[in-house]
């Protein structure tokens, strides 16, 4: 299973997936990025590292997460057999912690004494603050002011966990700006500090490393669906912000030709409105945050602010491997609006007793479109990558309710 076929060739030694990826960073960071790559390559081959990663995933995170047959929803939609990969049941409530465990182990191995991170929805910030508490390392999380407003519960959780949350007021005051500010901190404190990136973006080796840590999602899904159905799934669906939960689910299946995959971007107010975060659907290749990928940008190469009701998808870029998978056609990418995601949120709450995060609510909205047209023996797995507790204020707002 670890042998790489045509659909999983990347990255090459320079961190490229086709023309995407790479290392577009300031010279100050470059030596550290090379150190990180070496440290990661060594760690990957060290059984002790893998053993500790797996131990923490089982006993601290609570893996494996269940693969759950959503029978009522399947029946309601009247088509495919729908499974949820329940990463929302992980400790801290999303898939983000899988990657944080891997990176904090690496940070410790590299002798770093301070951790920084960017966060959008606050899930990655919470997961980072959590592992920092667990390992006794100081933690600074950069978060856009817009996101701080709409994800108050997570801001408070990070503080309870001992992290410092630094509001970012530049640009669109969302995830992209938080990432700029984290990079500035890193350039300044490069010797002591480990930058714990929350998605499959940034310069090489982050996209590959974060993918590898998140691939536990797909590996478990493979085993679990074989146990439940005796065969591989027909379709996988996941939301894409930076793309880490999606690539985590997809990657172990990429060489299985029979498995279709759909990544769901945020269409915000609609792709035609210009207020969206659908970089693969409506963007073009460019260079931002250390890699070449699809970006929302104007004709002068200036980045356009993204929009989504979901803070975790509100990013004008996408991980470079997704850019490559889009061009190769191996994965299909679609976009779902704020309103569609909200409808799916309510449907899931009433039908399955699960409040999904607004990010996977986008994936679910696509499942709602897709499933009725599929035969009853079609197996569809959707990544329920986060729970919706953090989003109740945003949802209440859309309903005119005050909490």
């Amino acid at each position, binding site marked *: 299973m670890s042998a790489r076929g045509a659909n999983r060739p990347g990255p090459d030694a320079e961190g490229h997936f086709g023309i995407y990826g790479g290392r*577009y960073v300031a*010279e*100050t960071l470059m030596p*550290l990025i090379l150190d990180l790559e070496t440290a990661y390559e060594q760690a990957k081959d060290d059984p002790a590292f893998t053993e500790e990663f797996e131990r923490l995933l089982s006993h601290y995170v609570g893996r494996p997460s269940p693969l759950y047959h959503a029978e009522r929803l399947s029946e309601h939609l009247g088509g495919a057999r729908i499974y949820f990969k329940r990463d929302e049941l992980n400790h801290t409530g999303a898939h983000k912690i899988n990657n944080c465990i891997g990176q904090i182990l690496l940070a410790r191995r590299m002798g770093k004494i301070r951790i920084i991170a960017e966060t959008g929805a606050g899930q990655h910030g919470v997961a980072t603050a959590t592992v920092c508490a667990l390992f006794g390392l100081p933690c600074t999380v950069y978060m856009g002011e817009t996101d701080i407003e709409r994800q108050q519960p997570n801001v408070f959780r990070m503080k309870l966990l001992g992290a410092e949350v630094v509001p970012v007021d530049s*640009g669109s005051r969302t995830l992209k700006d938080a990432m*700029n500010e984290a*990079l*500035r901190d890193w*350039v300044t404190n490069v010797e002591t500090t480990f930058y714990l990136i929350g998605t499959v973006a940034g310069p090489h080796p982050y996209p590959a490393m974060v993918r590898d840590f998140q691939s536990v999602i797909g590996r478990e899904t493979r085993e679990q669906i074989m146990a439940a159905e005796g065969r591989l799934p027909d379709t996988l669906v996941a939301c894409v912000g930076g793309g880490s939960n999606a690539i985590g689910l997809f990657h172990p299946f990429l060489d299985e030709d029979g498995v279709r995959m759909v990544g769901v971007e945020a269409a915000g107010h609609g792709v035609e409105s210009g207020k969206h975060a659908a970089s693969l659907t409506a963007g073009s290749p460019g260079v931002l945050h250390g890699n070449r990928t699809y970006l929302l940008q104007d004709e002068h190469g200036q980045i356009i602010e993204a929009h989504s009701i979901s803070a975790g998808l509100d990013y004008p870029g996408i991980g470079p491997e997704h850019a490559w998978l889009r061009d190769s056609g191996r994965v299909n990418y679609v976009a779902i609006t704020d309103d569609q995601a909200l409808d799916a949120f309510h449907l899931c709450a009433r039908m399955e007793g699960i409040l999904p995060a607004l990010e996977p609510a986008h994936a679910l909205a696509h499942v709602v479109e897709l499933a009725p047209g599929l035969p009853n023996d079609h197996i569809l797995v959707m990544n329920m990558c986060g729970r919706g507790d953090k989003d109740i204020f945003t949802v209440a707002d859309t309903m005119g309710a005050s909490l």
Partner: protein
Amino acid sequence: MTGRIERRFAALAEEGRAGLVTFTMMGDPDIETSYAILEGLAEAGADVIEIGSPFTDPMADGPVIQRAGQRALRAGITLEKSLALARRFRAQDDTTPLVLMGYYNPIYIYGVERFLNDALEVGLDGMIVVDLPPEEDAELCRPALDAGLSFVRLVAPTTDEARLPAVLTNTSGFVYYISITGITGAAGATTAATQMAVDRLRRHTALPIAVGFGIKTPDQAAEVARVADAAVVGSALVSAIEDGLDVDGGATAACRDNALALVRALGKGVRAARQEAAS
């Protein structure tokens, strides 16, 4: 290659003094004011001029240059218009080296080949692209060198001995040593640290060495000028321009006056540095 940069540094060596390199953002606070400043820089004492081309996401810049970039983008500057300003400058001044500084994406979207053709045509001498380390030389660095333009590389305190040769290969014009690990506008390094770093670089390269990041006052510029071939001043100049804005953020005559007064003072500092040291 003997272009304007080489000739300028040769002349400085002849004079026995270090140079002053200035950075201002094209389009800040508006396009015409930024040109009025650019036009006066050489006469005020700048030996090499960096013209900033803004990017929405300048990840190596501090708040001062971030704000300048935002003002410039609001004023409608584009790479094309920055090149047009360079052309206007060149029509007046055929000797002062002009180096464009920015991030890669606007150049990538403009088109590398088109950019290099236009850069040569307007009389630009080189470029500094913050997010293109040697690992990405195939993108712009090698095509630029082939076209006869300088690609000025940044060297950081984190650039170790093993890496230096790779960083210095394909560097031309001069080497830009970033004296601190940090963003633009942060506090500067000590003279002793700068001296050590410059000595280390001299063992690896015969190119002129400019030192920047954190130089704000004529005294600081003079200190750097004692050990390096040039001192680079950016954020302090941008702050001086910002100080001249009216309450609504509009340009006033003070933007240009402040900037050029600071350049005059910095130029004096740099020019006096070695004489003081000698006497």
